């Protein structure tokens, strides 16, 4: 049977069928052993603080004095808070525009770098370097050198007669410059794609070549399906990460979310309310709203994955 046909019969990651009728949970013991560290960590370090933050979201906690229960006040105030809606809008824009751009670029470059290219390790390192810098304190300076009103980009544009705006200081372009910063640091998902591409056995491609398959067919029938668990992983986690994006906006805007709140990301606003305005109750409420939103996106992702993600198990 042809290799392609074999691949085509890979089980999709849908509900388990095909022969398993009775659930026996035969691995409970083994699972306890393997999961022990995670369970301890969950209970001792994660669950407690999470539950506390949930409780705090119904209080007026200001970090210094004892919290008082105030019911759903924080949530009703949130609904009427223009800056809250603005931060949600900014973050959604960032997620919807930035994530596909970054992942698309990461995949494209990973594919370009995967095949026996001369100097491959060099290119891989170079494309990954920006991610190393991405959250360092120096990046704000560097970004301003590039995108400031008299920065490099505008100097280059001036050479062709275009007067560029203040990319990071004009409220209409500031978010764009942060999205660009995000795309610039595509190294992380790129590495993951590379690792995933490496796991696809070369023999599939060779066999397909013998079958006479062209590049597009190889991509669609071999690469995409076999890479789909990794694509799915990157998609889920980049979306979660993008919703929580904080460091880059904080560094480039100096913590203000400026200019004019145009880069006031959700978690940046949350941080400002919590630590800056000592309104930790409100900040906790925001955090749980975010969790619900992100949870919804993730659940949709998982549901949709049944239709396009192929697992070999």
């Amino acid at each position, binding site marked *: 049977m*042809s*290799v392609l046909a074999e691949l085509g019969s890979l089980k999709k990651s849908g509900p388990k069928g095909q022969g398993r009728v009775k659930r026996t*949970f035969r*691995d409970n013991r*083994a*699972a306890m052993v*393997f*999961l*022990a*560290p*995670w369970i301890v*960590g*969950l209970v001792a*370090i994660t669950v*407690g*603080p*999470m539950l506390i933050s949930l409780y705090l979201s119904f209080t007026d906690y200001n970090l210094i004095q004892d919290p008082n229960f105030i019911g759903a006040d924080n949530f009703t105030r949130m609904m009427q808070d223009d800056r809250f809606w603005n931060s949600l809008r900014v973050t959604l824009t960032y997620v919807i525009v930035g994530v596909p751009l970054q992942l698309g670029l990461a995949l494209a470059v990973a594919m370009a770098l995967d*095949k*026996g290219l001369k*100097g491959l*390790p060099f*290119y891989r*390192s170079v*494309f*990954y370097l920006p*991610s*190393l*810098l991405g*959250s*360092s*304190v*120096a990046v704000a300076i*560097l*970004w301003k*050198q*590039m995108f400031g009103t008299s920065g*490099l980009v505008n100097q280059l544009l001036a050479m062709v007669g275009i007067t560029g705006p203040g990319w990071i200081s004009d409220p209409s372009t500031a978010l764009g410059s942060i999205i660009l910063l995000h795309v610039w640091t595509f190294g992380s998902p790129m*590495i*993951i794609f590379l*690792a995933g591409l*490496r*796991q*696809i056995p070369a*023999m599939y*491609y*060779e066999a397909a*070549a013998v079958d006479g398959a062209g590049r597009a067919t*190889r991509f669609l029938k071999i690469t995409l399906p076999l890479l789909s668990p*990794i694509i799915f992983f990157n998609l*889920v*986690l980049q979306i979660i990460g993008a919703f*929580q994006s*904080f460091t880059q906006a904080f560094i480039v805007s100096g913590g203000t979310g400026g200019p004019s709140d145009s880069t006031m990301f959700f978690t940046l606003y*949350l941080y400002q309310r919590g630590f800056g305005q000592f309104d*930790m109750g409100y*900040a906790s409420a925001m*955090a*749980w709203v975010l969790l619900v939103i992100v*949870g919804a996106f993730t659940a949709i992702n998982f549901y949709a994955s049944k239709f396009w993600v192929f697992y070999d*198990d």
Partner: protein
Amino acid sequence: MTTESAPRVTTDAPRNAPGPDQAHRKGSTTARGTGYAPSPRQRAKSVLKHAVLITAAIIMIYPLLWMIASSFRPSADVFRAPGLWLTEAHTENYATGWNALTSPFGTYLLNSALVVLGAVIGNLVSCSMAAYAFARLDFRGKKWMFAAMLVTIMLPIHVVIVPQYILFSQIGWVNTFAPLIVPKFLATDAFFIFLMVQFIRGIPRELDEAARIDGAGHPRIFLQVILPLMTPALATTTIFTFIWTWSDFFSQLIYLTSPDVFTVPVALRSFVDAQSSTDWGAMFAMSVVSLLPVFIAFLVGQKFLVKGIATTGIK
């Protein structure tokens, strides 16, 4: 479209083909060929490809090059003379920066190295174990626990840091590295659990079955079958943990109070004072020094990314 069975193809494929690409050059090779002569057209394409890549590379790392260049300028000139060209290299920034803070900068590098080492080992051990359970084992409550694992990624750190800090301060771990390392041994970086799960699910179960037939239990399957085959995932985990821990400012800021236990990101911020003068040259110099270990870790680690599944059979 059928073809002969797989074994015949592999024996006939060129042995030293560097990758799938080479085997598919039409017009100048056959499935049996052991070498090829690139046509002028292909060589031009290759040159073009390299040209594009190199240009892209320069654009990508221009900011970094600027920072390196600035580290060799006197601090006063850093913002007066934009651009990359250096008339002369001033190395005093490196000496100044190294000694500017309470301890020589090497102390902070060492502290960061300790924290990173702990974090990497912790993640590798605990996350791979948890991932094996989620990917290969069948147990009660699996769906809920998997969902719980994902939920832990979704809550922003700023709201859990205060309760966590209170917890750690009650057990006296503040101003030590414990709050930064111990959670890693408890698989709190669910990102890597999920990553490894996806990788493990790409490994065919037939290999597990084969090992079980040979009499192996789960521990042996985990150690001898799964772990070796998920080297790219382990390498990725190592690289990312290294880099993220090396540059994690917020947690390290909150938990470390005395300067002798400061780590690199906290130390770097010490150079910058919003209200009076900052020694930019020294700061850039130390930033470059801080980047070196990460970069080296990446160079070394990516070799393991290259190792993939060479065969699909273990017989």
